[in-house]
């Protein structure tokens, strides 16, 4: 089998996944943007944002867990379609990896854009946004740091969703539910290594030292790469389930 054929099939499968996710992602972006704009306006009207606390920072959880839910659907919804359309699991797994990276990349750009806009708006009233949880960046305009931070953390969430969804598809609900802590391990590892957002807070509360950024980023990338490599092998071993009548 030629590499060119495998590339074409993976690409087609990636485009199919992207087309399937695009509407939901666009709705998500619109909803989050509107909600946070309204929250911002509400706070400004009620008490003002003189304290400078970042409102957009709270969106980091939505941009983690919505993509995680999309990750859960990758195998359950799209593997049967891909295999029934003549795509091998290998090509599908590459497409899934592409979807994980693309979805998290979009979320990273969205987050960075939000921080930039918030920074600009705050600066108009001569306030600098302050962050309540730990980040690798300390200013909202530092998109060159925001993008990799969010990208890595969200990619770990989507990959975890993919792993969880694949396990449920392959083994049904009972075993994977019992093994859920194990399935979440790669995600927890990346969150702990990166120590941003809730994970940073939790580690602080437990008086655990954070890894220096220069070590944390490569280590988190290594865990992410291992997770995705593991998914490549795992997806290749999944049989399509019998259909519901």
């Amino acid at each position, binding site marked *: *089998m030629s590499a060119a*054929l*495998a590339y074409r*099939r993976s690409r*087609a*499968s990636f*485009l*199919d996944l992207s*087309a*399937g996710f695009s*509407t939901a992602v666009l709705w998500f972006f619109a909803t989050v943007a509107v909600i946070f704009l309204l929250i911002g306006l509400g706070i400004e009207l009620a008490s003002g944002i003189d304290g400078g606390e970042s409102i957009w920072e709270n969106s980091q959880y939505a941009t983690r867990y919505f993509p995680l839910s999309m990750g859960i659907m990758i195998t359950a*919804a*799209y593997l*049967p*379609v*891909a*295999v*029934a*359309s*003549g*795509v*091998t*699991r*290998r*090509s599908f797994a590459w497409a899934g990896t592409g979807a994980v990276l693309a979805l998290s990349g979009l979320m990273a750009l969205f987050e960075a854009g939000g921080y930039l806009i918030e920074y600009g708006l705050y600066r108009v009233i001569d306030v600098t946004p302050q962050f309540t949880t730990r980040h690798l960046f300390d200013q909202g305009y530092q998109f060159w740091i925001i993008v990799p931070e969010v990208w890595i953390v969200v990619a770990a969430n989507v990959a975890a969703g993919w792993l969880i969804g694949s396990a449920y598809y392959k083994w049904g609900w009972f075993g994977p539910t019992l093994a859920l802590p194990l399935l979440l391990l790669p995600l927890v590892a990346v969150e702990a290594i990166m120590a941003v957002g809730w994970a940073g807070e939790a580690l602080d509360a437990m008086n655990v030292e954070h890894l220096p950024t220069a070590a944390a980023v490569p280590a988190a990338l290594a865990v992410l790469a291992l997770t995705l490599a593991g998914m490549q092998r795992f997806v*290749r*071993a999944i*049989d*399509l389930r*019998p*259909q*519901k*009548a």
Partner: protein
Amino acid sequence: MTLDIDIQNLTVRYPGVTAVDDLTLKLEGGKIYGLLGRNGSGKTTLLSLIAAFRRVTEGTVLVDGEAPFENERLTQQICLVRESGDIVVDGDSVKGILRRSRRFRPQWDDEFAQRLLDLFQVPLDRGVAKLSRGQKSALGITVGLASRAPLTMLDESYLGMDAPSRYAFYDVLLEDYIENPRTIILSTHLIEEVARLFEQVVIIDRGRLVAHDDTESLRMRGAAVVGPATAVDDFTTGMTVLGEQRLGGTKSVTVFGEIHPDARAVATDWGLELSPVALQDLFVHLTKGDPA
């Protein structure tokens, strides 16, 4: 282009049941096969293995001389449409399904797909969830046929269609097969309706191969004997009777077993008419046993 299939000692076990039991079967490329079997006889499992929906764990399945599982060259040339379709993601529209098929199927024929949708009256802009059962079946058929996959397998995929649509499907399948020869396997319960399409018939029961032959040869394994009731009774004495009907003094008895040319000559002398047995009668006889 057509693909042949070579299955050797294939066994598939599910918890508590053996779905396919040491099955050996060779299917030449470029023919229309009828795959017949009762519910739970292993038809869908067999087709799923050929289409690489599942891994083969015991025995071998070769398509065009190679194992299809994780074989990109082969899988893109194999199209299996199961009863309610694997080609749909929740929220998909008919247009979206066509777009997907165009993307994945190298021999996809858009014009033919459109013609089939028109024929089966499937609206292009409607969401698949809003289609009737018959329309969903028709959509599956459309994808199966317009993919023009060298190995096309339709597993009960037209059961939901009404009779006029099914007959239109049989005609269009035959017409397209003549223009674009390929290997087609039709798994069905509507045996008599589809029998005219089959060049060869494979019957499996409880995962085992019961019969594999040309349709006509298979039908010649028995006979429908029609004539005066007394003569029919005398002629069929000692034969395996599959069924009988009587109208006045005329009787029709379906028997199983080869009828020797001498016996055929006797039948002619007695004024009896011998015709090949109906495939459905033969199927019922060969697979009778505990209800599935």
